[in-house]
Structures are given as structure tokens and as C-alpha cells.
């Protein structure tokens, strides 16, 4: 695998590479190089399977991170390709030409994060949310609690307890007081 990484490194300059496990590697590449590297890995190195495509919202850095997770059935290695894109003008090339099923991921990302994939089939169709009018809900600046209070009628009388404290008070009182039973913290 290191050999392969070196080989890719010679081809293009990638920004970072992480070895998480023996069978899980991540590399970060530039947005423009994605298509090149995906087609290379798929056609020449046997990474024929796109396991998933997902996004992470880095609100503080004003960036989305897209992860394209590829899998190689011969050497049984996962390779994640990370790409950072701008959060304001979130747009990314569509990869439905490489893996036909990726349109579904792109449709979901379009709905949940508002990332555009020009040319991807049916990308505008709603996936889970029908008739959504707010900003895409998985963006971190979307306040779900506020939206829920505003939209769905809250039933009054809801209360929460700190589980650890509550269980100590209610359930394990007997045990907490009894000297015979050893607890973990003593």
C-alpha cells in the first residue's frame, strides 16, 4: 500500500496522507485533481468499489470535507479520498460517470448540505425532506431545536435528568450505601 501511495505521490502532489489501520488509509487531494485520481485508482489500481461518499461540515474553517471511500477487493484495503471545498459556494464535480450509483449519494448531499453537483442525474429531487424551505438541515448553522419548537407543537412538561446522577439517586441507592459491595471507584 505504501508503494501505491508513493506512486500516487509521484503523479500528483497530495496534501496529506493518514494511515489509520492496516486496511484503512486516507489521502487529501485538491478539488481539481479528484477526477484524475479517482479514474486512475479505479482503472489501474483495482479500487473498483465506491463504498460511500459523505460530507463533513467544518463551519469554523468555512469548508465542507467530502470523503470518497474506495475499496479494493484484491488487496482488501479501504482508501478514503478527502477533498475540501468552499462552504459558501459549495460545488463539486459529479462522479456519476465513474460509479453510476453515486448519483444517490450526491442527491442526498445536495439535500442535506446544499452541495451542488452539476450534471448529476435527478440531483434536485427531494430525498427525505419533501417541500423543505429552510437552509439544508445538516449544515451546522441550522438550529434544529429552534426549528422544532417553532414548527412542531411542543408538549409542555418535558424534563430531563442527568443519567449518571439520577441512577445513583434512584436505582443504586441501596448499593451505594451498603459497605459490602465493592464499587469501581473505591
Amino acid at each position: 500500500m505504501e508503494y501505491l501511495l508513493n506512486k500516487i505521490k509521484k503523479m500528483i502532489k497530495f496534501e496529506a496522507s493518514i494511515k489509520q489501520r492496516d486496511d484503512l488509509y486516507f489521502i487529501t487531494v485538491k478539488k481539481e485533481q479528484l477526477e484524475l485520481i479517482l479514474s486512475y485508482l479505479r482503472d489501474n489500481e483495482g479500487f473498483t468499489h465506491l463504498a460511500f461518499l459523505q460530507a463533513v461540515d467544518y463551519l469554523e474553517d468555512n469548508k465542507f470535507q467530502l470523503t470518497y471511500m474506495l475499496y479494493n477487493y484484491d488487496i482488501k484495503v479501504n482508501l478514503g479520498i478527502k477533498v475540501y471545498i468552499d462552504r459558501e459556494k459549495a460545488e463539486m464535480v459529479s462522479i456519476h460517470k465513474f460509479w453510476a450509483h453515486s448519483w444517490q449519494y450526491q442527491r442526498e448531499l445536495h439535500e442535506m448540505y446544499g452541495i451542488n453537483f452539476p450534471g448529476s442525474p435527478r440531483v434536485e429531487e427531494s430525498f427525505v425532506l419533501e417541500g423543505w424551505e429552510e437552509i439544508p438541515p445538516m449544515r451546522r448553522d441550522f438550529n434544529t431545536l429552534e426549528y422544532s419548537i417553532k414548527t412542531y407543537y411542543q408538549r409542555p412538561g418535558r424534563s430531563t435528568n442527568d443519567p449518571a446522577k439520577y441512577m445513583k439517586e434512584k436505582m443504586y441507592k441501596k448499593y451505594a450505601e451498603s459497605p459490602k459491595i465493592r464499587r469501581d471507584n473505591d
Partner: protein
Amino acid sequence: MDKKDIKEIEKQMKLANEGLPEKERILFSDVRPTTVAPLNKYLENFLNWARARSLWIIGYGTGCGAMELRPLMTSRFDMSRFGIAPRPTPRQSSVFVIGGYASIKTIKRIVRSYEQMQGPKFVIALGSCTINGGMYYDSYNTINRLDYYIPVDIYIAGCMPRPEALIAGFNKLKEKIQTGECEGMNKYAENFDWYKKNQKQIIKDWNMPDYNW
């Protein structure tokens, strides 16, 4: 009141079906639901007795709580002992079991199926999600109180309620039916505008008839 006024009122009483495209409106009914008054006392009592003994539930599980319907149906808890049996379509069933959280997409189907069920019909809502949102109370996509969208006869609390709790709930429902308290259908017809207002507030792309039956 002359004839013109009556016509005007009749027109207002009709449902607009605004969500449908213009040329499809004629295909759907525009009549509002009406309340059904009980028959004479003895006959109604007998009917209620009979209704309570044959509950047909529609097989539409909406949330994780619907998982508990499977053990309930099958041999371990065996709900057919209680005269309860599943049906595949809303037209043939009388009890709607809402199995937990209902997302907006689901509530649209729930409303549609509920309206298609023939009366008298009853609703059992299980799980804390239907009562106050449960652990999804702050979700952008699930409703918090089911009784704002369809009338609910019995709530079964728990996350998720065990089949024993469901059986208790069904027994409670039977008692209620026998005493004639389950008037959910009439409640729906009486407060039709209020229910519709609540439903339309969350279902933004309303592309079905206003009352489907």
C-alpha cells in the same frame, strides 16, 4: 336567504383541493367529512360490543416501535387471541397503530391512509415519540405531538413499549370502544379545519386531495 346565498355557502363548504393540478381536481371528491350520530342506544351498545371484538389493524409501521408488532402478531404473544388481526390495506382495517416517530414524509402517508380507512376507526399511538417527541423532540423532521394531526384514542408510553404494554393498550382500547368513548372519527370531522391547518403547516408540498376517501 335566497338561492344565490345557499349556493355560495355550498361552494364554501366544498374543499378546494388546491394542491392538485387543475385538470385532476375533477377526479377527486371535494366533500367534507361528516359526523355520524350514534344509532339508538341498544343497537349502538351491541355494535360497540361487536366492534371491540374484531379489531383489524393496518399493517403500516411508521417508526421503530412498529418492531414490537411482529412479536405481537406471531405465536409468542399472539394477538389473535384478542380478536386482533392485521390487514394489508387501510380500506379493510379499523385500527391504525402509529409505531413511533413520524417524519414529515410519513405523516403525509399517515394522513392519507387514516382518511381512507372506513369508520368507525381508532388510532393507537405507541412510544414516547408520538406523545411528546421522545428522543427526537429536537429533530427537524419528526413531529412532536401526533394528536395535532390525527385524533388519537390510546397512547402507549415507553421507548419502545413491550408487547405486554401493547396488549394492555389494546385492552384499554376495547374498553373504551365498548363504552362508546372512541369518537375519533367524529372529532376529526368536527375539527376538520383545525386538523387540516396543522397538517398543511408542516406538509409544505401538499399534492394530494384535501380529504382522501
